[in-house]
């Protein structure tokens, strides 16, 4: 991971071209209870192992990507467009 991220649109690109936001978390429904919003904004599973993060290819195609990777080994399992599979 990280030195070269395989962008699904641009191919392998160096870390410098990306900006990381953090965990991929579905945004709660507008009418979700406030506790759900608090958890969404503040709480993180933070596992030592497989994790999905939002990375932005800010120096490339400017797409938001879902990077599935291992936080212990830095192995990248998959990189997909964030919009993929969404309605």
């Amino acid at each position, binding site marked *: 991971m990280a030195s070269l991220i395989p962008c699904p649109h641009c191919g392998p690109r160096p870390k*410098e*071209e990306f900006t990381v936001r953090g965990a991929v978390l579905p945004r709660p429904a507008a009418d979700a209870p406030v506790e759900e919003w608090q958890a969404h904004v503040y709480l993180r599973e933070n596992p030592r192992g497989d994790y999905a993060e939002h990375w932005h290819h800010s*120096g*490339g*195609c400017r797409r938001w990507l879902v990077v599935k990777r291992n936080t212990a080994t830095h192995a990248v399992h998959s990189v997909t*467009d964030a*919009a993929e599979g969404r309605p």
Partner: protein
Amino acid sequence: MPDTLLTARPALANAATGHFGLPGAGVTLTALPEDRLWQALARPGTDPAPLLAYGAGPCPLRSIGPGQWLIVGVGTGTLAEAQAALAPGFALSDQTHGRVRVSLSGPSAADLLAKGTAVNLALLPEGGAAQTLFGHLGITLARTGPEAFELAVLRGFALSLWDELILLGREYGIGARAA
């Protein structure tokens, strides 16, 4: 009040030109005319065919990301006409003044580019484009020939890019010239 036409000033009007560095001319840097540069944005799920058909000239369409292209170079028709022709699938954002294009050509052009971008140029086909970083600068990189490339950069950074290319090209004896 201006009785005369307003005239545009090219971003690289005062850029350095001449020969720099070691003898030889491994690479030539040329400022390209600021004639046309439109960004096309496709509505998600739109078939790109009409847009692809719209282009003309050498590599006039540069893919810069999913659903996004730059339409570059000399062409006929105004943006409004093109927009009308391409609606509603595509929106056009005029970037003619927003980005400045330069070309790099010569046997050392690829080596020079490798000093800034991690794109594997051996895999970039003629006509292919990549949105990437050159050092700290975002560029749209396109291959226009076996040893020829074109770079588009935000106008505000055009001089910085120009100077950086000359600096990195000294090793190859770079020639820099206006369009």
